[in-house]
């Protein structure tokens, strides 16, 4: 431990922890985050590792159980002797890992969009926060569809918090929230039909969804079955990616909107090679998505930082990653040194018949992270 040590002669692997659910109701998306993590590690190892040492992932499957995330984080740090962990999709799982990495001084790399209002010295956040997705999405929806919003979400931290932000945006700009409903995370198909009926009666202009996991499919399918039309009342989401669209069926997803920092359809050379590499490994019909991409680029950022520190010491890694830039598939991203959050791109996509998103809005560069919404404009015009 201690100072940078470049004379250290060892080929022992750099051991890191990986915590994504391969089973349970969150596996649709977390499985892709696991793949993004592993594919990045393999690429780095194929190039000879970091300073001649391969990265060795220790992977646990928390099975979509919130408590297990905390327990496995403890196991990784205490029994496996790991201090760097890549993992977590839901905010509840992040909050379960937080006390462990904070007390034992580990570093969690969190590749998922979330509601903001958090700043831990032991987390690097690489997904979007509300100023990087909600603000633009709200603006686009109000100008194109109208100002009556219906909120629907899974019942846990993220949807309630991000709806709080969205409600503020909608109201500050003369819109109304005509309904707000939360269904449990494990909600099954039958629970969505009455919900969509209720939405239909409320006659919103836009349905804003923060439903996550398997039940995303049920929401869109119920919408489809009850004959609503995305051309007039689309579902807009921050969490529905190519992975969920594929699970629900391309015809079901068509016409709905998602705001994200990355879509498979992003046209950069870096993304083209990323997508083809991914599909070569997992199959030509496997789509990429924003969480997969964040999982992928954060491992690369980590490896580049590790190259400089030549140590897994949390403080050194954290110090060196601040301000670091990386040419990610979504475009150039960097870790904002004020917040330890990534500056990522803002994009809005509309799902097409091929299960891909046509990009209808794109920021000119990455957007600075502002997790506490300190600097964002009071109204949409200012942003």
């Amino acid at each position, binding site marked *: 431990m201690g100072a940078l040590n470049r004379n250290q002669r060892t080929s022992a692997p750099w051991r890191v922890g990986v915590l994504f659910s391969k089973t349970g109701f969150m596996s649709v998306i977390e499985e892709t985050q696991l793949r993004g993590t592993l594919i990045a590690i393999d690429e780095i190892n194929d190039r000879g590792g970091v300073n001649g040492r391969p990265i060795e992932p220790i992977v646990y499957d928390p099975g979509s159980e919130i408590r297990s995330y905390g327990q496995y*984080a*403890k196991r990784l740090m205490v029994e496996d002797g790991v201090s760097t962990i890549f993992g977590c999709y839901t905010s509840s799982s992040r909050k*379960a890992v937080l*006390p462990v990495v904070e*007390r034992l001084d580990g570093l969690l790399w969190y590749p998922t969009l979330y509601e903001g209002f958090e700043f831990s010295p032991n987390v690097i956040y690489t997904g979007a926060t509300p100023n990087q997705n909600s603000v633009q999405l709200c603006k686009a929806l109000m100008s194109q569809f109208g100002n009556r919003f219906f909120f629907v979400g899974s019942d846990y931290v993220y949807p309630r918090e991000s709806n709080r932000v969205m409600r503020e945006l909608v109201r500050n700009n003369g819109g109304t929230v005509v309904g707000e409903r939360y269904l449990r995370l494990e909600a099954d198909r039958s629970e969505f039909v009455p919900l969509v009926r209720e939405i239909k009666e409320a006659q919103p202009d836009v349905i804003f969804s923060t439903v996550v996991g398997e039940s995303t499919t049920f929401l869109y399918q119920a919408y489809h079955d009850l004959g609503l039309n995305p051309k007039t009342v689309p579902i807009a989401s921050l969490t529905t990616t190519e992975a969920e669209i594929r699970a629900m069926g391309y015809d079901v997803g068509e016409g709905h909107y998602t705001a994200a920092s990355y879509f498979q359809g992003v046209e950069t050379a870096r993304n083209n090679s990323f997508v083809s590499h991914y599909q070569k490994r997992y199959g030509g019909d496997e789509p990429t998505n924003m969480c997969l991409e964040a999982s992928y680029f954060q491992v690369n950022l980590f490896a580049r930082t590790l190259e400089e520190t030549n140590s897994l010491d949390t403080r050194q890694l954290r110090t060196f990653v601040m301000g670091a830039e990386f040419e990610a598939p979504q475009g150039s991203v960097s870790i904002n040194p004020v917040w330890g959050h990534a500056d990522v791109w803002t994009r809005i996509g509309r799902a097409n018949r091929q299960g891909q998103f046509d990009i209808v809005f794109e920021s000119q560069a990455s957007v600075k992270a502002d997790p506490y919404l300190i600097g964002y404009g009071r109204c949409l015009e200012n942003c």
Partner: protein
Amino acid sequence: MQRTGTRYPAREEQVPDMSRADYGHDRWIGGQRPENRVAVEERPRQAGLPAEFTVAVIVERDDNGEFLIRELQRQRVAVRHIWPKPAQIPLQYDAIFCLLSDDLPQRIPWVPGEPSSALILVDDGKAPLNLKLVHNCAAHGMLHYPATARMIQSVLMMAREHFQYERRLRGRIDKLDENLRTMRLVERAKALLIRLKNLSEEEAYNFLRKQAMEKRVTIGAVAAAVIDSHELLS
């Protein structure tokens, strides 16, 4: 402070030897020996301890263990000895002295950072010192054998303070997060009042505060109500 409320003298007679699977001797320890009682009379109770301060002692009952238990009794806290070491450390104690062993982190039921008790590691000095293991236990104090009365007294005090201080800090962070959200609500409610009722900023704030005092709710709750009702009416 007199002996009111403490569990001393002990309940050796009242509580039968419990032989549960993972609890060998799990019982309140009493000072059955008269010299202990004499010692107790001489010592003040540790400053600031609540009336029912309970301590679990998970060590072997050798000479060092006996000494530790006896010294804790002299501090007039309720001591319970547990041995052999249970698979899971019990949760209901204010402080726990526990013999350090390689598998201790696995036997701690809470995740590091969210402890339920002040934890003091007891190092019997038999194995080489393993600092990584000490780190992994995320404890609040450490006692090395052979211990002196002063060491036991001070480690208990410091561990307890450290544990409570950590908890206060965590509480403060929660409160700060909450306040941050409340402030956003108040700002928005104020802006609404300024616009709709043609008030100055000061008047708007005083309006919110007065409402809160009259209704005996927080200013955040009033602000939220103002924003919600505006939403309903508009």
